[in-house]
């Protein structure tokens, strides 16, 4: 059984069909990309999956459990973590606190335990701190645990957002343009990080990305969207040669062969 199964999803805003009858499934342990021109409906797709929007029609199943109608926080608690296109950190909290917020759904401390500082509470907090620190170092941040998130440089903020998402021990990690604004070296590092997350933590990764170096390098499967519809899905090699995809990116009438440099 696939980890995530979405069938016939449609979402409209007013008269505009942001997503139209999209069916998509994702096997456990894979790294899959969603690509498409601006306005193709990729972010709406993420927002529908995470419960920010409720789809007009269609079903979403995660581990066999229906997600439609659940609140965003409930969906997150099912094991889906995400990052955001325009980095959304808790700016005035420290780095380690940001990561600890990510553990929210796993912390069992009750209000009573919290107020009385019972041993269970102290133990759990200590463990959470250590785990947060490990995650921080894992994504490549060192000695910044007590810095405020807003004071980190851009690349570090992207990494912190990933650490925060990992803190929830997700089964599925959604990354919304994780390489945006990064230089080639940073991009290469972060690709390595994603591979490691999948290989060593066993977390399935679904990402939206514009940077074709990233997409072609890392994806095992690519789903292409255009005008709210899924127009193709397949391996990087297949997508590279798919005429529909080329048309979507370069416009109708684009000659085969011209697309090569664009896509590579």
């Amino acid at each position, binding site marked *: 059984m696939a980890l995530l199964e979405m069938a016939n999803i449609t979402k409209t805003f007013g008269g505009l069909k942001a997503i139209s009858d999209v069916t998509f499934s994702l096997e456990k342990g894979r790294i899959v990309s969603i690509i498409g021109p601006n306005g193709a409906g990729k972010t709406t797709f993420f927002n529908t999956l995470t419960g920010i929007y409720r789809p007009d029609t269609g079903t979403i199943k995660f581990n066999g459990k229906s997600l439609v109608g659940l609140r965003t*926080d409930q969906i997150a608690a099912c094991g889906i973590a995400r990052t955001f296109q325009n980095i959304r950190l808790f700016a*005035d909290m420290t780095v380690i606190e940001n990561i600890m917020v990510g553990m929210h759904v796993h912390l069992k401390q009750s209000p009573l335990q919290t107020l009385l500082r019972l041993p269970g*509470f102290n133990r759990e907090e200590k463990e959470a701190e250590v785990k947060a620190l490990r995650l921080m*170092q894992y994504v490549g941040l060192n000695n910044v645990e007590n810095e405020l998130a807003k004071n980190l440089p851009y690349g570090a903020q992207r990494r912190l957002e990933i650490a925060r998402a990992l803190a929830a021990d997700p089964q599925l990690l959604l990354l919304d343009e994780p390489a945006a604004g990064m230089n080639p070296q940073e991009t290469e590092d972060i690709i390595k990080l994603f591979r490691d997350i999948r290989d060593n933590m066993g977390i399935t990764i679904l990402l939206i990305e514009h940077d074709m170096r990233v997409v072609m390098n890392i994806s095992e499967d690519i789903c292409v969207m255009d005008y709210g519809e899924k127009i193709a899905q397949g391996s990087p090699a297949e997508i590279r040669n798919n005429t529909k995809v080329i048309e979507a990116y370069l416009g109708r009438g684009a000659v085969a062969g011209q697309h090569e440099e664009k896509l590579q």
Partner: protein
Amino acid sequence: MAATSFKEVFDKLNQGVVGYVVILLHVVAGSYLVYSQPRSNLAFLVFISSLLSLYFFRADNRFKILVGMLLALVIIPVIGVRNIFYLEVIFQISVFAALSLGLNIVVGFTGLLNLGYVAFYAVGAYLWAFFGSQQFYVLNYAPGTQPPDLPFLLPGDAFYLFLLVAVIIAAITGILLGLPVMRLKGDYLAIVTLGFGEVIRVLANNLDKPINLTNGPQGITPIQRPTMPEWVVDLFNSLFSGVIGHDVKLADMYNVMFYFFALLVIIAIIFVTKRLDDSKIGRAWTAVREDEIAAVAQGIPIVRMKLLAFAVGASFAGLMGVLLAASRTFISPESFNFMQSIGVLSMVILGGIGSIPGVILGAAVLTILNLQVLQGFSLYLNDLRQSDAVIPVINFAWKDLSTQLDPAKYQKLLFGLILIIMMIFRPEGLIPAKRRKRDVSVDETK
């Protein structure tokens, strides 16, 4: 640049025994000044500012706690009883500090601008005012027409029970009021809470019919206080009447008692706030304040977390309401108007949103400004009006000064100025909130 260099100089000075010496000198000098000149506002300011020294100068925590307890439990009550006005000032500071700390949970930690916070204060106050007075037997009389000699519904000591009841009722009110509006954006929520504040006040004003629940604009009086055992008064007198210079009366002893109650509430709020802040709940609150969309993506149920903050904040206000009703023995709707809400908000903003020491400082500064500086200024102007003095250059006789110019009545001007100036120049407040630094290393678990 100037600010950083000042901080550097201060830090250089603030080392070793300097802190101990400054704190002790300040406390002793302040106490002596107030003791020798019980009518001087300046002496009182010197005295009360010793709390600032206690906060800012470096010393062992046990020493600070000891000095703090000595101040709060012995020196302040004694000085207060010597001059009842100071006791009133100190009591009001503690009441407003407690309210500001409660509001701080909602505004500071969770980022919900609540402009109707006194509504919960009113709920607590009217709760005890109703059950702790004769009002139950006045239900069927229009205000002012009830016969004399009605019995009291409950004994005065039920006050203690109602401290708890008020916490629960205020929390429930907070949840009920919050439930429909928690999904609103911040600025809408602010206006709606303002509306709730006004609704509660208008209800208090008008629920003297069809049945007389609140006694309308005249308010409810007398409200009972808990009994004070005689030996407490005797003990206090045997210990301190020498220092004070006269025997303390029961009424003054009550003021001391309510000051202690308020102090207890402050300690309770600080305790609860600190512990919640440094836990899953507190982190979730701050996350909601910082970015709701990111918070909900971490699995935080934001509506529930906001309601919790609302309820906790409300419960402390309810508690203080009971205290207010009992200490004043009289309440009326006008004690709970919009200006009170904004006053408490100003205290939080002046001191530093989210900062416990800041909020207490804000409450103290504004209360002192209100009760002492503005009123002192009013009295001074009055004296000038009585005299034959003339402003030299423009040849203006003070006695021609309009009696409308009464600074004590211009609190709104003060609150307004503080809000504007703080927002433009120092939105983080006098003592900005700090995040806790964690000392953690990976190999600790091994």
